């Protein structure tokens, strides 16, 4: 098991190293002169040349890469052209809001997706199954940014039920001050028993979280349904039924533990997807998160910011996959003991 995890870790590191090569390459190939951008619009030719030396752009590529890698290892992701802040600091500022949204969305998707996927598989071919399948296909076919607006139209414009956007009303934290503990209004409100803040933050979270959950929900249901159907056809499920176990035990204990493994991979995948999905909906919901930041960076060709976000998200993704590998090993003794890998 330890060797298995170590090996996965090693592979993850190789992948991350590969990531840095790719982002470095992209940043170098990107149009525009980084030195000119660095010194700003009114710089003279000499200033640009000097900046080139300062930035090490006159050095051979491998030296530049080594320097880049060194900076990365120190958590230095460069300085954003747009915000003029260190990208790492920007990401620290914006990531928590995105994580809050992503975690909420994923939690929604998982909590609804698992029972729905299982139920659809268990009632394969029946109306519940058809309905679930249609819903899941709807989830994965919906452009999230469009869904965001449609939800706003319905729940804000028509029903007056939920706030349009933002993470919290501008006034709420002024009227009910919160001490930042976690940086999330929702959690801070909860921890401090500041109910107006908690409720307001929750109300603001619902639409973006539902929007974000749609795609992963569809994917989880779809994946789990098909792997459950496959598992339910296995001999050991038939054997469990033959042993006289209750259908609920057969499905939720014996079949689900087997069927969940491929779905876990999908969940890791969709978590990363959701983080990037926030690109598309954070601006719609004016959610002050990484997605909004990245979308702005993309529109303004802010390469350091784009690359920084890319690396951070990719590293999280690799880490998450590692976690999934570990969980799968915990679930499946065959992986644990290296019988199947």
């Amino acid at each position, binding site marked *: 098991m330890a060797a298995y995890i170590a090996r996965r870790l090693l592979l993850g590191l190789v992948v991350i190293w590969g990531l840095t090569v790719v982002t470095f390459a992209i940043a170098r190939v990107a149009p525009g002169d980084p030195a000119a951008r660095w010194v700003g619009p009114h710089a003279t030719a000499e200033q640009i040349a000097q900046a080139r030396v300062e930035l090490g752009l006159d050095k051979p590529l491998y030296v530049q890469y080594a320097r880049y890698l060194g900076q990365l290892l120190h958590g230095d992701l460069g300085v954003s052209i747009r915000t003029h802040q260190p990208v790492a600091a920007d990401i620290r500022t914006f990531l928590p809001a995105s994580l809050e949204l992503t975690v909420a969305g994923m939690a929604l998707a998982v909590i609804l997706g698992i029972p729905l996927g299982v139920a659809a598989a268990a009632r394969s071919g029946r109306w519940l199954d058809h309905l679930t399948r249609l819903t899941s296909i709807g989830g994965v076919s919906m452009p999230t940014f469009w869904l965001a607006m449609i939800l706003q139209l319905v729940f804000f414009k028509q029903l007056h039920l939920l706030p349009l956007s933002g993470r919290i009303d501008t006034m709420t934290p002024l009227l009910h001050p919160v001490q930042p503990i976690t940086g999330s209004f929702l959690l801070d409100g909860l921890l401090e028993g500041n109910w107006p803040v908690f409720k307001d933050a929750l109300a603001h979270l619902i639409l973006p979280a539902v929007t974000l959950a749609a795609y992963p929900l569809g994917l989880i249901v779809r994946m789990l349904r098909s792997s459950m159907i496959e598992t339910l056809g*296995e001999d*050991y499920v038939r054997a469990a039924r*033959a*042993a006289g176990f209750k259908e609920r035990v057969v499905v939720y204990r014996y079949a689900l533990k087997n069927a969940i493994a491929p779905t876990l991979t999908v969940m890791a995948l969709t978590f990363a997807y959701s983080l990037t999905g926030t690109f598309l909906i954070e601006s719609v919901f004016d959610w002050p998160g990484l997605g909004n930041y990245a979308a702005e960076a993309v529109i303004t060709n802010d390469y350091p910011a784009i690359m920084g976000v890319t690396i951070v998200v990719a590293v999280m993704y690799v880490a998450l996959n590692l976690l999934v590998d570990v969980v799968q090993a915990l679930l499946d003794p065959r992986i644990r*003991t290296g019988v199947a890998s």
Partner: protein
Amino acid sequence: MAEKARAADAYAVGAREPLLSIRDLALDIAGPDGMRPILRVQALDLYPGEVLGLVGETGSGKTLTAMAVVQLFPTPHARITGGSVRFRGRELVGAGPRELAAVRGRRVGVIFQDPSTSLNPVFPVDEPLIRALRIHRGLSRAAARAEAERLLERVGLPGLVGKGRYPHELSGGQRQRVMIALALAGDPELLIADEPTTALDVTVQAQILRLLAELQRERRLAVIFITHNVSLLSGFADRVAVMYAGDVVECGPTAAVLQRPQHPYTQLLLAAAPRLGSGARRLAAIEGLPPSLRERPRGCAFADRCPRAAERCRVEAPRLAPVGEGGPAGGGAATGDGLAAGEGLAAGAGHAVACFFPGGEAQ
């Protein structure tokens, strides 16, 4: 219909009540183009404590027939569309989940063909066993563990409980022993063994067969032993039922069927297997293929391949009828006219065959 009912009644006349009684079982499989008939079993009885060998080639329907008792088919699309399956006098066709649950595991234990797929790979092997003991025998956790230990020891696997051993850590033979223990956990009266040794090596097969035979004797189990290898039944099965194209074509005491097969299919089947030291240079082969189940022939299903087939065989389906008392092949009363001819089948355990021209020699 009336005729059929009468036939069933006549068939059921016997000294003992059968534990399991199947009559005119019809089972279809839902395919992309509608229901496809698979099984049309006229009659099959099993008595308490009796070992019945259910023999047939691939696709003959032997597994589906046996599994009709617990209604657990290898394909989810199988549906029983008619007939009757009575277990201890209770009708199981059309039974609800509750009734079936009362049968599964508790009254009827099942062993599957491939022990490497019938054990859940992500649970320790003792886990389902302990669960079964708890729910079927109402044991406490500790008592169930002790009982599991005892049971596993009986099947030749001492010291497995609580060790967190997973199926992939066991050999094929050991896995099948675990399956046997699980099948017996509910202390059933009937054990359905679906080709339990096919996936095993010959030497292991011998061990498992021994074990099954011992357990059957100890627990006075009724066993349906499904196999495609007739040889396995010798010395184990009390009676043999031979299936072809979804129906029983011949059944009777093991010795009678193996030594004096009446149905041409049985005869050919027995002759087809090479025998050690026979010195034969040729084997009896059955030419052709089993009929398509979708378009079953009007007459005898075997007629197309049968060396003895006559005009009648192609237009009329023979029904299972008793072979003359102790009579040699070909002699006596069996005419394929079935029980409608008014012939009773003594004790239901006699030798019966579904053929208009039974007996004779295949070769």
